[in-house]
């Protein structure tokens, strides 16, 4: 098992190297660089700038160097924790990303837990009671869930919260905590608001995962080992949970890796609608404003999250299935 984790860990640097190149290529992809747009902006504002000034700025940011040197400069800075500077926001990227990343991770993790806690039991109940009334009810709910756009659900829930309970549930913080430093009060305030986006974002994956669990479990319930467990005299619910369910949730666990990036981009519309201070809208603005270093850094963070998510799902799968952890060990 240790060997298995070690082997997985050894691949991580290679993956990160590849991803950093991809992110850098994306940064370089648009014509011109941010100085071009900066200068254009200054010119628009009536400020003239001399060629000397431009050259000195270019030197300052290493833009006079060949592309590969620029890449190493960027990576070198990243490794030292310097995420660069956003021209559009005139703030350091680290400052911009920092709290948003934390909130995004918190929200994503909560949504994931919500999804699993709701979807897996629904899948199990549907499969063990196939073609029963409850199975059909869940199936109908699933399709409704699948067909409802996230943001619509967000709007409906926000309206219900506002109309029935007088709650304003946009954002993650009340106005008085918006810019406040972290404290228990601020945390409590956040927890009082985060459940709504959690439900909205979590519901999206619920239908799909419930269907996957149901289909897999139906396959496994017919397998001889399930019947053997029954022939031993195990109570039905116990044997279903112990044997076939463990096999059936493996595909769900394996989706963990791409759950984070999927939710980061998928939750974008929701984040805009609910004005959540998460990372998705920041990326959108960076892309629109050609703030490419900020965009590239966020994309690289997505990649890192994907790598970490995949690693976690690999370890969980290995814990679930001895065939995986003993493979080649």
């Amino acid at each position, binding site marked *: 098992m240790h060997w298995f984790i070690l082997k997985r860990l050894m691949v991580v640097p290679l993956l990160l190297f590849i991803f950093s190149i991809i992110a850098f290529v994306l940064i370089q992809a648009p014509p011109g660089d941010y100085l071009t747009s900066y200068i254009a902006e200054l010119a628009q504002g009536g400020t003239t700038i001399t060629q000397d000034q431009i050259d000195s700025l270019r030197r300052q940011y290493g833009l006079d160097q060949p592309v590969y040197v620029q890449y190493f400069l960027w990576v070198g800075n990243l490794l030292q924790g310097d995420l660069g500077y956003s021209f559009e926001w005139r703030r350091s990227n680290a400052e911009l990303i920092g709290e948003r990343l934390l909130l995004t991770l918190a929200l994503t993790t909560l949504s994931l837990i919500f999804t699993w806690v709701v979807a897996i039991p629904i899948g199990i109940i549907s499969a063990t009671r196939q073609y029963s009334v409850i199975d059909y009810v869940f199936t109908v709910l699933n399709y409704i869930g699948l067909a409802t756009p996230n943001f619509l659900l967000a709007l409906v829930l926000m309206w219900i919260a506002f109309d029935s309970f007088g709650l304003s549930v946009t954002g993650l913080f009340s106005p008085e905590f918006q810019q406040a430093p972290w404290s228990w009060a601020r945390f409590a305030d956040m927890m009082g608001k985060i459940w709504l986006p959690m439900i909205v974002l979590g519901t999206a994956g619920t239908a799909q995962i419930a269907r996957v669990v149901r289909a897999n479990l139906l396959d496994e319930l017919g*397998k*001889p*080992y399930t*019947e*053997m*467990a*029954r*022939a*031993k*005299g*195990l*109570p*039905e619910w116990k044997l279903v949970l*112990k*044997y076939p369910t*463990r*096999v059936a949730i493996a595909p769900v666990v394996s989706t963990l890796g791409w759950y984070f990036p999927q939710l980061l981009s998928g939750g974008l519309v929701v984040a805009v609608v609910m004005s959540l201070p998460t990372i998705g809208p920041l990326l959108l603005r960076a892309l629109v404003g050609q703030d490419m270093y900020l965009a590239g850094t966020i994309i690289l963070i997505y990649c890192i999250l994907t790598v970490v998510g995949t690693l976690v799902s690999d370890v969980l799968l290995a814990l*679930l*299935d*001895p*065939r995986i952890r003993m493979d080649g060990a």
Partner: protein
Amino acid sequence: MQQTPTRTDRDPDRARDADRTAAPERPGEPILSVRGLKTHFATDEGVVRAVDGVDFDLHPGEVLGIVGESGCGKSITMKSVMRLVQHPGRIVAGEIRYRRPAGDGKKAIDVDLATLRPQGRAIRRIRGGDIALIPQEPMASFSPLHSIGDQIVEAILLHQRVGRREAKRIAIEKLAEVGMPNPQQRFDAYSWQLSGGLRQRAVIALALSCNPSVLVADEPTTAIDVTTQAQVLELLKDLQRDHGSSIVFITHDLGVIAQLADHVVVMYLGRVMEQGPVRDIFHAPQHPYTRALLQSVPSLHAEPRVALPTVSGSIPHPLHRPTGCPFHPRCPDAMPGRCDVAMPAMASVDGRPPVACFLHHDQAEEDAA
């Protein structure tokens, strides 16, 4: 409901009752007594009568062979007995009397299994503890995610009042008993780390782990190679001799039956065609179906380069059962106007084992449809 064209003046019920007791070499009370068992599957296309009126007795210490082609209801019969038939299958009629005297620290049991809730506590006590299954596919009968030791210990903890440590000791003992090499290490092995033969042994160890009174072996040797098959059969014979448990052996392999069984039940399309002591069935088969099955067994003394006789035709579609005797479309001796109209009852003639065939007697089932 069809009336039989010719009714005999003998009361069919009384005749059948007499047949049931006509087995002088099977003394004592049967441990398992199945009467009129019907298990039907209500599918969208119609009702599949997988088991359609089966009677048999299993006596203590006896090996009962159930033979028939694939799809004749052998497995479903025994799954019905263990109440393992899943939706949409359902026992619609019949009695499954399980009677076991006290012993082995267990209380005496006398219960009609057909009346129990299929997932209830009462049947779960019996399943695994009293009636254990050696399944068809040893390859797939262990969960690949749990060690075989874990799965054997689980059964022991369910049925015996022992701690985890003692359960492990029993499990290793059982693994050793079925001839598993290095049982101590194999306890922690996963099923996919074992060869087919060892897996089969592990499954048998699991079945034996709670000292069941009845072992249901459902074609336990079909999935393994011939050499291993012989070893497994040898093992089952030894275990049966040592423990004196009763075995119901389901197979389509008449050779295996000849080696192992004391008593044979020949099934076709959910019905018993003929049953009796193994030597009578083999030396004096009465039913044309039994005869056809026996002729299709390859023999060393047969003429070389002559096609092996087979049972002509194939099993009809389960939803299109023939009227009358289910075997009549394939039967070389079918009597038109008789066999395709009425279902022959199980009856014995001149002290021979009971057979359901108009060639031997004239009794028809009353509810032949």
